[in-house]
């Protein structure tokens, strides 16, 4: 055995992470081996906590710490509970929160419909969303799934099931990105941007 077992174990584990190959994994491992005791301890503690001390918000399924049933956003007294923003992943909540432009609540689907990959409505948190809309007084559901084929399919599915519940259903606008160039826009995006043009003045 060229490399001692504890070292090899960490290399193997690290190289299973996305974007990390065997070379990067070895470099990280040997850095930790040589570096100060603190970093290795801090990392191992943080990783242990990651699974043990987190859970999902009972209402919106965003990630939250394990000691609470509602996440900070759902528990916040000043946020508008009657407007829901539906996103694919917890990271999308972060992206929207960074804008500081949305004051409502969220609903995290944890995935997106994909007929080809065999991901159906029962595989993501759609039933929970429909239930939530029926139980709580909700005025508007903003669908913020990605503007991809799967995101669109999910949006259409949600629309079909939300409209009969008598709630306003909207979708994030799509159009030209900030700093973009018309010349490189695809037909779909340009058409949508034209359709969704806005009055100036």
């Amino acid at each position, binding site marked *: 055995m060229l490399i001692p077992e504890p070292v090899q174990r960490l290399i193997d584990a690290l190289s299973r992470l996305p974007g990390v190959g065997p070379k990067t994994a070895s470099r990280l491992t040997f850095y930790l081996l040589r570096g100060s005791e603190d970093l290795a301890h801090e990392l191992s503690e943080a990783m242990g906590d990651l699974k043990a001390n987190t859970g999902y918000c009972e209402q919106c399924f965003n990630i939250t710490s394990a000691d609470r049933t509602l996440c900070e956003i759902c528990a916040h007294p000043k946020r508008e509970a009657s407007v829901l923003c539906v996103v694919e992943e917890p990271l999308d909540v972060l992206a929207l929160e960074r804008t500081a432009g949305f004051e409502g609540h969220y609903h995290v689907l944890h995935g997106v419909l994909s*007929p*080809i990959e*065999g991901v159906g409505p029962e595989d993501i948190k759609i039933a929970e969303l429909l239930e939530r809309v029926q139980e709580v007084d909700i005025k508007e559901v903003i669908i913020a799934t990605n503007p*991809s*084929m799967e995101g669109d399919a999910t949006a*259409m*599915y949600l629309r*079909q099931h939300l409209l009969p519940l008598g709630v306003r259903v909207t979708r994030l606008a799509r159009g030209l990105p900030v700093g*973009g160039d018309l010349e490189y826009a*695809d037909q779909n995006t340009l058409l949508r941007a034209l359709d969704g043009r806005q009055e100036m003045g």
Partner: protein
Amino acid sequence: MPRQPRSFRVEAVILKHSDFGEADRLLSIFTRQRGKLRAIAKGARKMRSRKAGHIEPFTHVSLQLATGRNLYIVTQAEAIDTFSSLREDLVRVGYASYVVEILDKFTYDEEENAPLFRLLIKTLSRLSQDHEPELVVRYYDIRLLDLLGFRPELHKCVVSEAEIKPEDQFFSAALGGVVSPQHGKALEGAVPISIEALKYLRHFQRSSYKDATRAKIAPQVQRELEIVMQHYVTYLLERGLNTPSFLRRVRREREES
């Protein structure tokens, strides 16, 4: 491996995409020139990507590819036809997904099949217009099987080689064709097929699409054709397809609402 140029242009249809690395997309594409390939579109998940809108599934696209170490790299993309109406209706999404899934599962990387490429483009185009989708995909099934060398025998009993009489028959996926009732009853794995369904399959096999679309198929025969074809395809692929259950669900919910 034959020597290939570092960079070349292909005409392709995007079959699948999946997230790859930080902001890249891994594409499965079917090209006119080189059959199925896998290619990386770097940065395609970034909002400001110039490529992203051109490489969504079902898009007919012109791509400039560079030969990377393991995979091809998309350097330019320009949509020829986005078939955008395929993405605006859930049932059509289901049918288009079926079309690309079955092609993806039947083909191997780097195996050129230009007629199959033409069939794919035509089928997606038909689905994006107002053609009867059930008919479009059943015609596609039959043509695809032809082009891949799995043409089912529909005129002679595959057990006795006797001419098929105009009565209800059986279909054996393992033997690749129709079996007369006399031999079919006892044959393991043979499924019943009505004479109406069989006539439509024969009609699709010998006719142009234009002639095939003249057929007005009763809903229960449509269901039967779907079941028989799915049975045959599942046998050939040795695994099930993902899209039929999605398709059944969205169709059912459409009818209910």
